[in-house]
């Protein structure tokens, strides 16, 4: 599969002192082996995996691998991540992340410091998810309170529409789609989407578009007062947003990996 490394930070527009840059932020793709789990019995997995590794030890030595949970039955329960990770490391591999897991499985994976990776392409997701069409919007709206957001959230295929205020401390995530908020977004609230984010009320919280590294994602809002805006890992905090853009209708997007905030309308 292809993993997009999303550069995880800083396109701050600092004061214009001529400092030679110490690093550059780039996005690039890698092809990694994927271990697609078909059963939860880790002993069985190990018994079958070990001989394969023995056949080609060079190939697996220090190789980053991704664990795919998508083929497990929906209600399959807890994946023994500590055991799985330990076993993979023991065989020389470096488990870096999981994909296709349920919210609960992702939580467990995160506890083991595994990254949660998105689907490789949206087309693949679209093809896969005809069966569980209702699922993405549900899973998408994981709030910090540990419950799905109230019924105001509607969405199709990963997109999420919220028509009530997003309050301080609430987090909304549209996995694999756009997030639209009709009301205000309070300071201390956090919006995330793999696609674009649209906010029609005053935007005072944090917004992260292109969470999985989509460089083409944009943020649109009618009243910019955000604490932080970010597209595919390039971010600006409120302090670095020019004062003359505050309170205006703007779009935020990447132009050759430089974060730009421009008035619209």
């Amino acid at each position, binding site marked *: 599969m292809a993993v997009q490394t999303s550069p995880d930070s800083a396109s701050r527009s600092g004061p214009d002192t001529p400092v030679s840059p110490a690093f550059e932020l780039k996005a690039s793709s890698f092809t990694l082996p994927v271990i697609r789990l078909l059963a939860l019995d880790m002993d069985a997995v190990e018994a079958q995996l070990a001989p394969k590794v023995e056949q080609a030890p060079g190939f697996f030595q220090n190789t980053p691998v991704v664990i795919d949970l998508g083929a497990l039955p929906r209600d399959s329960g807890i994946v023994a991540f500590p055991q799985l990770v330990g076993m993979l490391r023991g065989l020389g591999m470096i488990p870096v992340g999981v994909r296709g897991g349920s919210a609960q499985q992702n939580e467990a994976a995160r506890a083991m410091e595994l990254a949660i990776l998105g689907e490789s392409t949206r087309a693949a997701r679209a093809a896969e998810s005809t069966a569980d069409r209702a699922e993405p919007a549900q899973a998408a709206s994981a*709030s910090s*309170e540990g*419950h799905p*957001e*109230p*019924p105001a959230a509607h969405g199709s295929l990963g997109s999420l529409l919220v028509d*009530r*205020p*997003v*309050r*301080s*401390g*609430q987090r909304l995530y549209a996995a694999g789609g756009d997030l639209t908020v009709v*009301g*205000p977004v*309070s*300071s*201390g*609230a956090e919006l995330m989407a793999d696609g674009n984010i649209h906010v029609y*009320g*005053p935007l*005072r919280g944090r917004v992260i578009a292109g969470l999985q590294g989509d460089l083409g994602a944009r943020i649109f809002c009618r009243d910019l007062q955000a604490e932080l805006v970010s597209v595919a890992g390039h971010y600006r905090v409120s302090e670095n947003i020019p004062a003359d853009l505050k309170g205006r209708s703007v779009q935020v997007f990447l132009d050759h990996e430089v974060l730009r905030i421009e008035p619209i309308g």
Partner: protein
Amino acid sequence: MARIIVITSGKGGVGKTTTAAAMAMGLAQRGHRTAVIDFDVGLRNLDLIMGCERRVVYDFVNVINGEANLNQALIRDKRCDSLYVLPASQTRDKEALTQEGVGKVLEELGKGHDYIVCDSPAGIEHGANMAMYFADDAVVVTNPEVSSVRDSDRMLGILASKSRRAEQDDEPIKEHLLLTRYSADRVERGEMLSVDDVQEILSLNLLGVIPESQAVLNASNAGIPVVLDNESNAGRAYNDMVARYLGEDLPMRFLDTERKGIFSRLFRG
């Protein structure tokens, strides 16, 4: 079934208990059978504000644990026949409030009352969650300053996601904003957020604005809900609030600074 109203805020010291006492007394005075419950287990104060602290025998936790029945624990208000107080326990902690137990008490109370007012403790932990979980209405008490506004905003998020109504996908809790300790003078000097500032951040239905007043402190000390003090601005503002809650359309009062002319000084004393 009774309508359950939670008085909440997130932040402490903003006037939740004063508001709970005023709301309950205001509803009861208008003839509605009302009960007010103190959820601040371990730091109970409602009994003081209601002036019934010397008549507490059993409390909320005793009822939940089955050590007393509800009628033994309810204290009838001496000033108003249709008002009952259920005090908190001072010797336990919040963990004594189980969801099942609280639900049972509210259900039983609901049979004989029109309104149940729940006085929430500060914070967003267990006690506050228990106070708001079963609510139909929420009055979010906020002072006109930024930290209180942010905490209220946080509490509104919790109301929208952690209540019974949210979990069962029912119609959401009806949220109301009450601004307390409002000082028009200080707003004019730019030392305090104005009603409009707060409304812009929280965008909520404004139930009332209670002016900062010595009468509130006096009433607390005397154990008389301030709503009974119709001489004071705070008392009148609380009466307006209760009327608005019951559907009356009243203009907001006490939002402007008073003219400090010689006559008003003479006549207002």
